[in-house]
């Protein structure tokens, strides 16, 4: 609870008490790596996303929390250019795409960009991997798509990437179907980072794993972030995962962002009634 260090409650109805509003960044001169504005998407009568803004700075980890149906995974798919919104702007600070709204790219261009600059790890490894191909082959596929053809180079690059994901190289020729859940996530991660993307997207990356395995995968992610300086967006309903990994967090519900802020602040001094419920339900 946030109130442990405070004292006697008063009973005035003061839901109108506001916190000091925040200013635009002044000390940080770096431009965001990712800027999305006004992203909206309607599926029939269902509002999946409504006017969502996302800003992500270089080397930053942004968490997105919310219950199922909050729109968090839909948003991630949009940012991975798998799906298109009804409206919205999306830019990444990449020289060859400067100032372009990525939502307006052709299907082919979107795919090119995704292969080169965005890595993604799904909760369900079947979405990210060919389960019966070798693990190293899965990683190499990314490099082949990017134009690499030499077998020796592919194998070496695959090895480097698997090692960075702390995957045991003795098993690099095993297909993912024969691996544990934690190992499958490491193969997905190796594939995602093979081309050193500017942006890594993680959709419930440790959901369904044993707690100890989850801790190991989270630790690998922290190390990768430190060593490679990748910016990441991690979607999770697990506040523990978010606290461990994220610098800032966005809370979503019914396709809208209710609150965002520093991860310790949102979890320890949540402002929105829904976030207060969410945090207290977990503690």
């Amino acid at each position, binding site marked *: 609870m*946030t*109130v442990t*260090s*405070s*004292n*006697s*409650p*008063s*009973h*005035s*109805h*003061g*839901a109108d*008490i*506001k*916190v*000091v*509003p*925040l*200013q*635009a*960044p*002044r*000390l*940080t001169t770096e431009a965001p790596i990712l800027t999305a504005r006004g992203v909206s998407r309607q599926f029939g009568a269902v509002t999946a996303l409504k006017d969502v803004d996302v800003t992500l*700075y270089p080397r*930053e980890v942004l968490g997105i929390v919310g219950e199922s149906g909050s729109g968090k995974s839909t948003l991630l798919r949009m940012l991975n250019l798998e799906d298109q919104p009804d409206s919205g702007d999306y830019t990444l600070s990449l020289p060859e795409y400067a100032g372009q709204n990525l939502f307006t790219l052709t299907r082919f261009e979107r795919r090119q960009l995704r292969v080169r600059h965005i890595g993604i790890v799904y909760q369900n490894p079947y979405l990210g991997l060919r389960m019966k191909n070798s693990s190293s082959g899965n990683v190499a596929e990314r490099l082949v798509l990017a134009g690499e053809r030499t077998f020796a180079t592919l194998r070496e690059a695959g090895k480097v990437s698997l090692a960075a994901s702390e995957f045991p190289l003795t098993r690099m020729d095993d297909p993912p179907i024969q691996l544990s859940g934690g190992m499958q996530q490491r193969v997905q991660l190796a594939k995602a980072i093979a081309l050193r993307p500017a942006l890594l997207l993680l959709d419930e990356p440790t959901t369904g794993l044993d*707690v*100890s395995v989850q*801790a*190991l995968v*989270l*630790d690998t992610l922290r190390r990768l972030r*430190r060593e490679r300086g990748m910016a990441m967006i991690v979607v999770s309903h697990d506040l523990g995962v978010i606290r*461990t990994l994220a*610098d*800032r967090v966005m809370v979503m519900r019914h396709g809208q962002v209710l609150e*965002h*802020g*520093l991860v*310790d*602040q949102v979890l*320890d*001094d949540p*402002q*929105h*009634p829904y976030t*207060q*419920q969410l945090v*207290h339900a977990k503690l």
Partner: protein
Amino acid sequence: MTLLEVRQYSKSFVLHQTERVIPAFQDLTFGLNPGEFLLVAGPNGAGKSTLLRALYRTYRPTSGEALYSSAYGPVDLASAADIDIMRLRREEMGMVSQFLRPRPRVSALELVAEPLLEAGEEHAMERAEGFLDAFGLKRDLWAAYPTTFSGGEQQKVNLARALIRPSRLLFLDEPTASLDRQARAALLSRLAELKAGGTAFMGVFHHPEDVAELIDRTLQLAAFLPGNEETMGEGADHVA
């Protein structure tokens, strides 16, 4: 020149479910100079820890400003953008709390070295070893996971981690609780070293006598009771 100039700082918690407002402190005004050690004193529930957290921005203040002279120019901690606060926390502003948040499968040594590694500094492991040694954590435990440590051992790891990088402004939230004699001595010597280097401190202590030789001034907070709100605030700052 003042490092931190706090004006009319207030924090109340709003609990929506019960529609209650819980005031923590109100209209605090005080300053802090480089190299100065300010003890935050007051009875339980006066909002001492809350004040530290509202300046570190784990809590959002309700009103007021906290003008901090950062290495990049003046910035108001109450209203600075999250990304700016992140930068200050990484580079010049630290919180030393009572409890370690150990992570499974991360060794004591790695936890302590992490702030140096993240800042890309050299000899991170050797320096981390030196700190653990000074705080008296048994060498056998350096490679072990602090999740299994006793409270006192975790606290040593926590302090080593929190103090390994010099900061310009450090918030200390009861860091001496559950420390043995050697660790307390190591803590005092590190704090004195940082203070001599110009670090400013705001600290909450159960037993202020533990750090008596470091304290320059005391900020006295009054108990905040409903109905006598006027007893709080301005003029609370007095020289000890």
